[in-house]
C-alpha cells in the first residue's frame, strides 16, 4: 500500500500528517484496516467513500475521539495516538456543527481561546477577526438558535479555526445545506483554505464535492485505501473497477489483454495496456460516457474503435442527454451528448441504429 499512499504526493519533504498501518476494530467489526497515508502541509485533502467505509472513523482517530487498534498517527513526526483530544493541535468542524446552544455566537467562537486562558482583549480581537473572516461581522451577540443553517455552518467553521489549528478536520461539512448553498459554500471554503494556508482534511460521501474542493482525494472501500491521487487522475485513471464505478459514470467491458489492444466479445479495441499486464490476462475496458461519439454511420478514421448498437433509452438532463445503447451482446453502454442545439431536440430516437466510437486514448484498461 506504501506506493499508493505516496502516489500523487504534492508536498515534497516530511509530511505534516502520516497514518502508519492504522487499524480500528469495534468488537468483531473492522472499521479501518492497514491504512497508510501521508498528507502534506497546506493540502486540501478529501477522504471519500460510501457510508460505512471507515472515513469518519479515520477522522475521529485524528481528532482523538477514537483510539486506533493498531498503527501510529504522526503529526510533524510525533506520534499523537496517546494525546487526548483536548491537547491535540487539530480542530474539527462537526457534521451537526455541535454549536453550544447555551452560548452566543461570539461565546461559541471564543470557546477554544478561553481554554488557553487567553487575555480578554486578545479574545475579543480574534473573535471579531473570525466573524469578519466568515462574513458575519454583526452576529456576535446572536443566540445560536437564531441562525439559519448556512450561518450555523459559518460559525462552526470560525469556531474551529480560531485556534489556528495545524489541521482543520471537516466531517461532512455541507451535508445539512441545500444544493445551491452547498455549491456556493464549496467555493468559499476553497478560497478560505488558500487564504489561510491551513491543511484541511474533509470527509465526504459526495464525489462531486470531493472533486471540486480537494487537491488530493483518498478513495476508501470497506476500511481500506482504494486509491489516492489528484481528482483528475482518479477520474481519468482509476486503479480498479470499483473506483471507476464509484467516481462518475462508466461502462466496463470485460476482455483479455492483447498487443496494444483488448480482446472482448464485442471485438478488438485498441487501448494503452497497463505496464506489467500480461497477454491473455482478464481485463476491463473502462469508458466514460462523455468520451464517446455517437453517429448514424460507421465513422471513418484508422485509429478509432467503434461498435454498433440500437438506442434503448434516452434520459434528458437539460445540459446533456444520456443515451443507453444496446450492443450486440445485449449489454448497455452509456453515452453522454451535450445538448448544443437551441431547440433541444434529440438527434436520435429509440431503436435507431447507431455507431459508438472513441479514440484509443479515451479508454482505460483495468486489471482488477
Amino acid at each position, binding site marked *: 500500500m506504501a506506493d499508493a499512499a505516496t502516489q500523487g504526493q504534492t508536498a515534497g519533504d516530511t509530511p505534516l500528517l502520516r497514518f502508519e498501518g492504522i487499524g480500528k476494530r469495534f468488537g468483531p467489526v473492522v472499521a479501518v484496516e492497514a491504512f497508510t497515508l501521508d498528507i502534506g502541509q497546506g493540502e486540501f485533502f478529501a477522504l471519500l467513500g460510501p457510508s460505512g467505509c471507515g472515513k469518519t472513523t479515520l477522522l475521529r482517530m485524528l481528532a482523538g*475521539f477514537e*483510539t486506533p487498534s493498531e498503527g501510529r498517527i504522526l503529526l510533524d513526526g510525533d506520534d499523537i495516538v496517546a494525546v*487526548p*483530544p483536548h491537547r491535540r493541535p487539530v480542530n474539527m468542524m462537526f457534521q451537526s456543527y455541535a454549536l453550544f446552544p447555551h452560548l452566543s455566537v461570539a461565546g461559541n467562537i471564543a470557546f477554544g481561546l478561553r481554554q488557553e486562558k487567553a487575555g480578554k482583549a486578545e479574545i475579543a480581537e480574534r473573535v471579531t477577526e473570525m466573524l469578519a473572516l466568515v462574513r458575519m461581522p454583526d452576529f456576535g451577540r446572536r443566540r445560536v438558535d437564531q441562525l439559519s443553517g448556512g450561518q450555523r455552518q459559518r460559525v462552526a467553521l470560525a469556531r474551529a479555526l480560531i485556534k489556528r489549528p495545524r489541521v482543520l478536520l471537516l466531517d461532512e461539512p455541507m451535508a445539512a445545506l441545500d444544493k445551491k448553498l452547498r455549491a456556493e459554500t464549496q467555493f468559499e471554503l476553497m478560497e478560505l483554505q488558500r487564504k489561510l494556508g491551513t491543511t484541511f482534511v474533509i470527509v465526504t460521501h459526495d464525489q462531486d464535492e470531493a472533486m471540486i474542493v480537494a487537491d488530493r482525494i483518498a478513495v476508501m472501500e470497506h476500511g481500506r485505501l482504494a486509491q489516492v491521487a489528484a481528482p483528475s487522475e482518479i477520474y481519468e485513471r482509476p486503479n480498479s473497477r470499483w473506483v471507476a464505478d464509484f467516481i462518475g459514470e462508466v461502462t466496463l467491458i470485460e476482455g483479455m489483454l492483447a498487443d496494444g489492444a483488448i480482446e472482448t466479445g464485442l471485438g478488438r479495441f485498441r487501448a494503452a495496456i497497463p505496464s506489467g499486464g500480461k497477454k491473455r490476462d482478464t481485463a476491463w475496458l473502462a469508458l466514460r460516457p462523455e468520451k464517446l461519439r455517437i453517429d448514424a454511420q460507421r465513422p471513418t478514421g484508422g485509429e478509432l474503435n467503434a461498435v454498433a448498437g440500437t438506442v434503448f433509452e434516452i434520459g434528458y438532463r437539460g445540459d446533456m442527454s444520456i443515451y443507453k445503447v444496446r450492443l450486440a451482446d445485449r449489454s448497455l453502454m452509456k453515452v453522454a451528448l451535450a445538448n448544443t442545439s437551441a431547440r433541444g431536440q434529440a438527434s436520435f430516437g429509440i431503436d435507431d441504429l447507431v455507431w459508438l466510437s472513441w479514440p484509443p486514448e479515451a479508454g482505460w484498461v483495468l486489471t482488477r
Partner: protein
Amino acid sequence: MSMGAKKGRRLGSTRLVLLIPYLWLALFFLAPFLIVLKISLSQTAIAQPPYVPALDWVAGWAGLRDFVAALSTDNYALLGSDWLYLVSYLKSLQVAAVSTAILLMIGYPIAYGIARLPRRLQPILVMLVILPFWTSFLIRVYAWINILQRDGLLNDVLMRLRVVDQPVAWLSSDAAIYIGMVYSYLPFMVLPLYATLEKVDETLLEAAADLGCPRWKTFWLVTLPLSLPGLAAGALLCFIPITGEFVIPDLLGGSDSMMIGQTLWMEFFANKDWPVASAIAVALLGLLLVPMLFYERLQQRSLEGGR
C-alpha cells in the same frame, strides 16, 4: 466507546460517579433486603429488637454457626397454614388484577383520545393528567372519603335522583377500594400508553385505510399491536404497586378481609411480630419478582435501546 476508560486522569472522578450511588443503594436498598430475609427466619421474642437470634459478630465463626443453627422456617410455615395470610395474598392479587383490568379499559380510551386530539393541545392534556400525581396521594384518597361516606356526596346525589332510597354503604367496601385504586393509578396507566400511541405514525393508519382496512380493524391490526409495549409498561406499573398497596384499602376498604400490605402493617405495628412481618415481605417480593423483572427489562429497553 467510553473515552474516560482509557485515560488515567479521568478514571478517578468517573469511578466516584458510579461508586457513590452504588454504595448508597447497596447499603440502603440491597442490604436491608438481606436483613429482612434473615429476620424472616428468626423467632419472635420479647426483647429489643424483638426477635432472636441476633448475630453475634464478636463470637466469629462459632457465632455464625450458632446463628445459622437457630434459624427456622417456622414463619413461612405459619404463612402457609394460616388462612388469614393466604386469604390476604389472594385478595391482593384479585384486587390488583381487577384494578389493572379496569384501568386498562378506562385508561386506553383516554390515552388514545389524547393522542388523536390536535398536536398543540396534547402537551396541555398530558400536563393535566400528570398534575394530580403531583398532589399528595393521601389527599387524593382522602378526597374520596368526602364523596363515598355514608352521609357523603354520592349518596346525597343518588337519593335526590331517587336511584336509591336508603344511603348505600360505599365506604368500607371492595367497590370503594377499586374506585380508589383506579383513581390513584390512572396517570400511571395513561402516560406510558400515550407515550407509545403518540409515536404511532399517522401514515401507517392511512396506509392501512388505503389498502382497504376499515377503521375499527385498523385499530386491532395496527394501533393496538404497536401500543403493546406501552400497554405492558402501564399494566405492570399499576399491577405491582397495587398488590402491595396499604393506604387505599386501609382508608377506603372494609375490615372483613385485608390486603397483604395491611396484614404486614398490622403484624408489624399492632402485633409487633417483626419476623412474621418480614416473612410476609419476602413472600410478597417472591410473588412480584417475575412481574418486576419483566418491568425492569421493559424499562431498560426503552431507556437504553432507544439510542
